């Protein structure tokens, strides 16, 4: 078990930060990222512990730390150093201690209102100034004040500190909701969760100007690191759930569906009922639910037939009820839905089952909890599914994977693979990037690891800039078939110089791999290059731990291999020699 798996020991992380850092830096395949932290109070340990969590997620940060307390000045009057640093992520570490215009009881309601507007204008100006870096910006909400001069009225009276901070938070969250590229680090929620008296320590503020008590810095950093890893496509994608004593109380094979604890009428049943309802909400966000249970299939399914069961059999993508080791069931699930084992979280009440999975499938994350009433927290607070962006496709993801399983079932009844593909009645739509697609394209670019030739990542503004770029050839592809719409699943970016085009990015969602979608993408890309007068196209494969399946793809499409090394393979295509490959997808080409 890693020291970073939830629930982590924050005190241990603080004490062992040096040796942990030394060990973590040895991990292979770390993704370098530039992280700028702007200061509203002491950063010191926040930077150190954030680095540990990011390394734990496979991200190697290079930091820029702003001057102490000068977040506003650094943003609004940048001396050039921040722009020169070119941050990939900007985190503005502010708290209620940065509110300069707090009203007092000497104010009138009107002057207190003016102070609120002045304070918000100051933060809004700082946030607006942060936009010019074109990178994701993470901002904090404000923690509640530790004292209330008017007591409870403080929340009602415009001169009250509680009122002021509630109003500031309302403005701040509205701003984040409306401004693309801004993400909330909900400091106020964390302070509430741990209790204000713990979260903030007067003596640590007076001595060291820490706006967050040292012992909660690991929780703060975990929260920030979750946002960053989510933005970089490192979220978990699905859950593998045990049944007996995990989704309901009792052993269904012994007591039958009527005997299990699941009703809201009993304390024990309520815990399982609420956990199922929580999972149902995750499913709505596109998290894939699967079962690995040691049971007879019929008995296992009978629990979900109960009318009071929040989850039904159809909510699960893969349902493995058998007597095989669970590690085997989980490996099969990953294979069937075509995702990496590291994208799965295993939830089981039995510590012995957890241990076997940890040993046999070290890439799978295993949730730790003690008692059914702790299960929601174990999933929720770990931040496995931190939702930074939500596209229409996310909500449909479960349905898409379900359709894929139906396709796999149908595939077995056809003589040839091509006959099967034709039977899918696939329809593809291909076009250059347009503003409505930019968000989905950015999301896909940043979370696709397997079918990704160069693993270059782009921010939203970078993708949008390509739309206007005369020298760029951009292409997206959508794919639908008789089972349903897969949505936007592939994108290519080429850079034209003279008569040559470099393919800087090519990604595709693995759920449509081997459906000739990749071939049709290339057909369309070559056609668009030719229209721009391009005679030669160069493609590169940059190996990572995950993109092996695309290593030779250019070679199979008529490209000639020019060079090959451990870090890069280069392929080139003479446009006039290209032979279109697609034979099964009906193409709609947009400009």
């Amino acid at each position, binding site marked *: 078990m890693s020291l970073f798996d939830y629930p982590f020991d924050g*005190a241990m992380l*603080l*004490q*062992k930060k*040096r*040796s942990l850092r*030394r060990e973590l830096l040895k991990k292979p395949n770390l993704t370098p990222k530039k992280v700028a932290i702007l200061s509203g109070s*002491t950063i*010191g*340990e926040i930077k150190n512990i954030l680095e540990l969590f990011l390394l734990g997620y496979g991200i190697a940060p290079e930091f820029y730390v702003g001057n102490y307390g000068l977040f506003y000045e650094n943003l609004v009057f940048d001396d050039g150093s921040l722009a020169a640093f070119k941050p990939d992520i900007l985190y503005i570490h502010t708290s209620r201690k940065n509110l300069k215009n707090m009203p007092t009881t000497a104010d009138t309601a009107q002057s207190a209102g003016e102070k609120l507007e002045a304070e918000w204008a100051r933060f809004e100006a700082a946030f607006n100034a942060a936009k010019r870096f074109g990178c994701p910006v993470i901002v904090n909400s404000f923690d509640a004040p530790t004292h209330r001069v008017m007591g409870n009225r403080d929340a009602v009276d415009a001169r009250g500190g509680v009122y002021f901070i509630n109003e500031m938070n309302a403005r701040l969250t509205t701003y984040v909701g409306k401004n693309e590229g801004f993400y909330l680090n909900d400091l106020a929620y964390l302070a509430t969760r741990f209790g204000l008296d713990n979260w903030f320590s*007067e*003596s*640590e503020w*007076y*001595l*060291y100007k*820490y706006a967050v008590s*040292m*012992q909660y810095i690991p929780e703060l950093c975990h929260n920030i690191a979750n946002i960053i890893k989510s933005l970089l496509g490192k979220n978990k994608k699905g859950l593998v759930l045990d049944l007996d004593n995990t989704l309901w109380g009792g052993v269904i094979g012994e007591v039958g569906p009527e005997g299990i604890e699941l009703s809201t009428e009993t304390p024990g049943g309520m815990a399982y009922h609420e956990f199922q309802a929580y999972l149902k909400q995750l499913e709505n966000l596109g998290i894939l639910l699967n079962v690995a249970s040691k049971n007879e299939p019929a008995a296992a399914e009978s629990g979900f037939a109960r009318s009071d069961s929040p989850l039904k059999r159809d909510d699960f993508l893969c349902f493995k009820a058998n007597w095989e080791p669970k590690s085997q069931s989980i490996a099969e699930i990953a294979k069937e839905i075509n995702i990496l084992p590291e994208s799965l979280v295993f939830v089981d009440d039995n510590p012995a089952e957890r241990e076997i999975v940890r040993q046999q499938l070290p890439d799978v994350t295993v949730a730790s909890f003690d008692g059914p009433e702790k299960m929601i927290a174990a999933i929720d607070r770990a931040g496995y599914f931190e939702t930074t962006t939500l596209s229409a496709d996310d909500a449909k993801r479960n349905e898409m994977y379900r359709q894929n399983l139906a396709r796999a079932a149908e595939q077995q009844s056809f003589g040839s693979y091509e006959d099967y593909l034709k039977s899918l009645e696939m329809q593809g739509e291909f076009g250059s990037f347009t503003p409505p697609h930019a968000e989905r394209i950015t999301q896909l670019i940043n979370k696709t690891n397997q079918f990704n030739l160069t693993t270059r990542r782009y921010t939203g503004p970078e993708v949008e800039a390509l739309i206007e770029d005369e020298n760029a050839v951009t292409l997206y592809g959508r794919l639908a078939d008789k089972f349903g719409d897969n949505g936007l699943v592939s994108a290519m970016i080429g850079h034209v110089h003279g008569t040559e085009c470099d393919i800087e990015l090519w990604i595709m969602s693995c759920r449509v791999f081997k459906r000739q979608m990749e071939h049709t993408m290339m057909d369309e890309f070559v056609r668009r290059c030719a229209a721009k007068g391009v005679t030669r196209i160069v493609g590169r494969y940059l190996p990572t731990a995950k993109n092996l399946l695309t290593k030779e793809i250019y070679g199979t499409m008529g490209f000639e291999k020019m060079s090959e090394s451990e870090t890069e393979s280069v392929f080139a295509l003479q446009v006039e020699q290209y032979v279109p490959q697609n034979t099964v997808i009906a193409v709609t080409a947009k400009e």
Partner: protein
Amino acid sequence: MTEQEIFDHVQEIFRTVFDDEDLVLTREMTSADIEDWDSLEQINLLVAIEKRFSIKFQLQDVKDLPNVGAMLDLVKRMAA
């Protein structure tokens, strides 16, 4: 808890925080003697000591601790 036990625990905390298994603590040691011992680490040490001995320092106690000896005496007084 004996003085020696307190010393051993505190030395162990110093060794962990500064990632140096050979570090030997003396009563006369100050932040000038350990390269990484700055105000940032001071609070880290204090928080670790609080946790290890289940004590809670007051602002008055820690705002001016001249050396390791003063730290040990403070723990001894509070853990008594």
